[in-house]
């Protein structure tokens, strides 16, 4: 342990620039970064280049920060207080070109890419809310991609305008957090009824109510799943890392456009503001998204001419035609009242309502057919020495769960991991996968919402491990929880007193 008086050293180092003591002490983070750069043998040029660019308009601040950074490096080099330096070998990463990206930036880029891949103008209707606002900020900078950002008067208007734009043939998007989803619920029900593509990005935060706006949580899953009146199913997609927000957004748009449905993208505060190296995709490899607008009549009228049935469905996807205003001959009226099958006319017929409720559910269910096989990380499985225990997660817990699983494996214990991207519908092979394991553990930053869904859907004895502190999971305590579960599988008590982290949450 070394005590370094960062403030005094920094203020002394930048004295020549004539800053106030308060302003001078603000550069102490650069002093610390300089010292760490020395200690870990990191190159200094990228930092000085960054500072030069960042403070280009303010030469005094630029010079003070660069000086503080260099002084910190020199402090490490010349002070004999530090006996060791560290060399960190490069992480084993796939080859290619990388950049750093935050989840919110990746999500915004995903929306722009989705606009390009579909040929649809992107329309974002949004009301500022933490931690989603950065998506609005990012998108508003990229109008040249045909992106329109509309800062609405409230959350309801944000989603309403997005739905109106979708009705007109745009890629309608709204971005928000949990409290905003509450306000948008009625419009989401309308979107379910209208069967129009719409993307709702919920950047989850601590709840309920205003809750913990700057902290992270996964507690909107059931709201996304069920938070509307009536039977109003909609697909749910969750990114698992900051960079994955790009791919997950494209996937959510694919579903929305293909199946004519609102889709909920469940990110969260830790993904939104967290960043990670992103292996840049080749734009040429991105899949196209076909809006497949209706352009011609799809039925025959009594007089033998063409007619248009706005709720006649595609046999495979059960999607209805997307006939946008301006298309001759396809004029039709949609609305929130129950629709008659095929014609879309208002209908109070009992059998029709039953049919339509089931059809809207079936439309979401058939999306499962388009999902890839679930990746099961169970290294021994191919040699028929698979794990007895499976850890199932979703969303931003991917990194922590993966790290905890690797720690357990270092004890030469077997544990398998599945991380879900699609929460609704769930992957078609998931039930069979869950059934293969003697124990299924579901860590979540809520009170067990996915576990509830898995139990209800598969009658599997999924065991929850929950943490609702507003903070992400940490690998070490989570690994101890998993070890406790493994001991129970062996017929031993879950808690071992030698462990640093008691295995909270494991039934004794």
């Amino acid at each position: 342990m070394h005590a370094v008086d960062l403030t005094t050293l920094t203020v002394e180092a930048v004295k020549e620039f004539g800053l106030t003591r308060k302003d001078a002490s603000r550069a102490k983070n650069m002093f610390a970064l300089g010292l760490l750069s020395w200690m870990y043998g990191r190159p200094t040029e990228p930092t000085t280049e960054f500072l030069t660019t960042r403070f280009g308009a303010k030469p005094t601040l630029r010079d003070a920060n660069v000086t503080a950074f260099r002084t910190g490096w020199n402090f490490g080099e010349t002070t004999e207080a530090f006996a060791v330096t560290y060399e960190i070998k490069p992480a084993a990463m796939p080859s290619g070109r990388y950049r750093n990206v935050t989840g919110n930036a990746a999500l915004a880029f995903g929306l722009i890419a989705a606009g390009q891949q579909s040929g649809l103008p992107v329309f974002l209707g949004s009301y500022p809310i933490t931690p989603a606002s950065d998506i609005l900020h990012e998108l508003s900078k990229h109008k040249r991609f045909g992106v329109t950002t509309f800062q609405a008067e409230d959350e309801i208007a944000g989603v309403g305008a997005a739905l109106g734009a979708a009705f007109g043939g745009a890629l309608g998007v709204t971005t928000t957090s949990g409290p905003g989803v509450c306000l948008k619920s009625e419009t989401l029900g309308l979107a379910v009824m209208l069967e129009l593509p719409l993307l709702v990005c919920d950047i989850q935060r601590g709840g309920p109510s205003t809750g913990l706006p700057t902290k992270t949580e996964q507690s909107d899953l059931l709201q996304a799943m069920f938070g509307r009146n009536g039977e109003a199913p909609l697909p749910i997609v969750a990114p698992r890392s900051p960079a994955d927000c790009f791919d997950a957004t494209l996937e959510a748009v694919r579903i929305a456009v293909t199946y004519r449905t609102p889709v909920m993208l469940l990110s969260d505060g830790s993904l939104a503001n967290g960043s990670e190296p992103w292996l840049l995709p080749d734009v040429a490899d991105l899949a196209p998204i076909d809006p497949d607008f209706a352009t011609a009549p799809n039925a025959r009228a009594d007089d033998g001419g063409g007619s248009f049935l706005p709720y006649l469905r595609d046999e495979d996807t059960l999607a209805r035609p997307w006939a946008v205003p301006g298309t001759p001959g396809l004029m039709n009226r949609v609305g929130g009242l129950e629709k008659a099958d095929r014609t879309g006319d208002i209908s109070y017929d009992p059998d029709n309502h039953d049919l339509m409720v089931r059809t809207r559910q079936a439309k979401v269910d058939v999306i499962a057919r388009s999902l890839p096989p679930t990746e099961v990380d169970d290294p021994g499985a191919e040699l028929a020495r698979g794990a007895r225990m499976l850890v199932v997660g979703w969303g931003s817990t991917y990194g922590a769960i993966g790290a905890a699983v690797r720690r357990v494996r270092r004890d030469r214990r077997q544990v398998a991991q599945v991380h879900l991207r699609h929460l609704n519908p769930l992957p078609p092979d998931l039930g069979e996968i869950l059934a293969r394991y003697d124990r299924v553990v579901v860590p979540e930053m809520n009170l067990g919402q996915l576990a509830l869904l898995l139990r209800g859907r598969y009658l599997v004895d999924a065991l929850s491990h929950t943490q609702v502190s507003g903070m992400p999971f940490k690998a070490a305590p989570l690994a101890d929880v998993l070890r406790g579960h493994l001991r129970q599988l062996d017929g031993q008590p879950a808690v071992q007193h030698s462990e640093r982290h008691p295995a909270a949450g494991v039934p004794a």
Partner: protein
Amino acid sequence: MTAVDLPGPVLARDGLADVPTSDDTQTRKDYASDQEVRWCPGCGDYIVLNAVQGFLPDLGLRRENIVFVSGIGCSSRFPYYLDTYGMHSIHGRAPAIATGLAITRPDLSVWVVTGDGDALSIGGNHLIHALRRNVNLTILLFNNRIYGLTKGQYSPTSETGKVTKSTPLGSVDRPFNPVSLALGAEGTFVARTIDSDRAHLTEVLRAAASHRGTSIVEIYQNCPIFNDGAFDAFKDKNSREATVISLRHGEPVRFGPDGALGVTRDSVTGSMRVVEVADVGESALVVHDAAADDPSSAFALSRLTDAGALQQSPIGIFRQVEQPTYDDLARQQVATAQGTEGAGDSAGLAALLTGTDTWTVA
């Protein structure tokens, strides 16, 4: 924070300038859908529907480029009966939905059909913000001063003391004056008309449709079931000369039998009042200027409407001014970005994703 001068000005253009026109001769029948009209017998909504179906052919637009968006309430069934594109949305939200549509589709004539409860109660926020932004929409506000669809509760335009199912001892809140509210939000086209005056209704709707920006037309509409006779003062042949304060741009505000009544402005307070022309002389009357940039005079005129049972009210176009519209400016920003930076393509997307700080892993 800084503010910039927006590029422009966007030239004043007709509200329908970007909407494609039709070469076909259209008739009222072209605008009637195959749905059975289901309002109560005698409802004022029939008259408005007939007027709209009758005047839309005169606009000469392609039918497929007209969209009616409504909220919830009796009048919000309107879109089902017009053979155009339409959306019967949810309570109060039609202006928000129409805003997204109008911003992204300048080639559409976008109409909002709403009522006093829909627009002024549950949807009040969206209404004032649509007016503030001046999105290119035409809003028809059917005001019957009652909740009809839910069978007879008082509405935000009902007179104080209204005895209804929900207020058996009389309502205690004061009503909105929709025109005053719209002018307070600095609406650029604000008008009032009456369901029973077909000619006036049609004239005002035509002006509203061709206004670029948000037009709002309050239509006094009788509900024969739950609030019958609310507007009788303006319908009775014998009384209406003295109750309808007819507004004509550029003309003195004068009404009553033989034009005996007029409106003057108090030079101290700026408020308006009704006087006998014989007492003050015609030169003292207010000359209506709907094109005045300052909405104060129009607002003062709007205060001549009774807050209680209606005995007198100005009818006509209160305000009609040209101002840049939100949707024109928003589209202009996109176009300008595409003009100066180049329209985004796959190379541009690749450059965006790559950013300025990358490294390569071998």
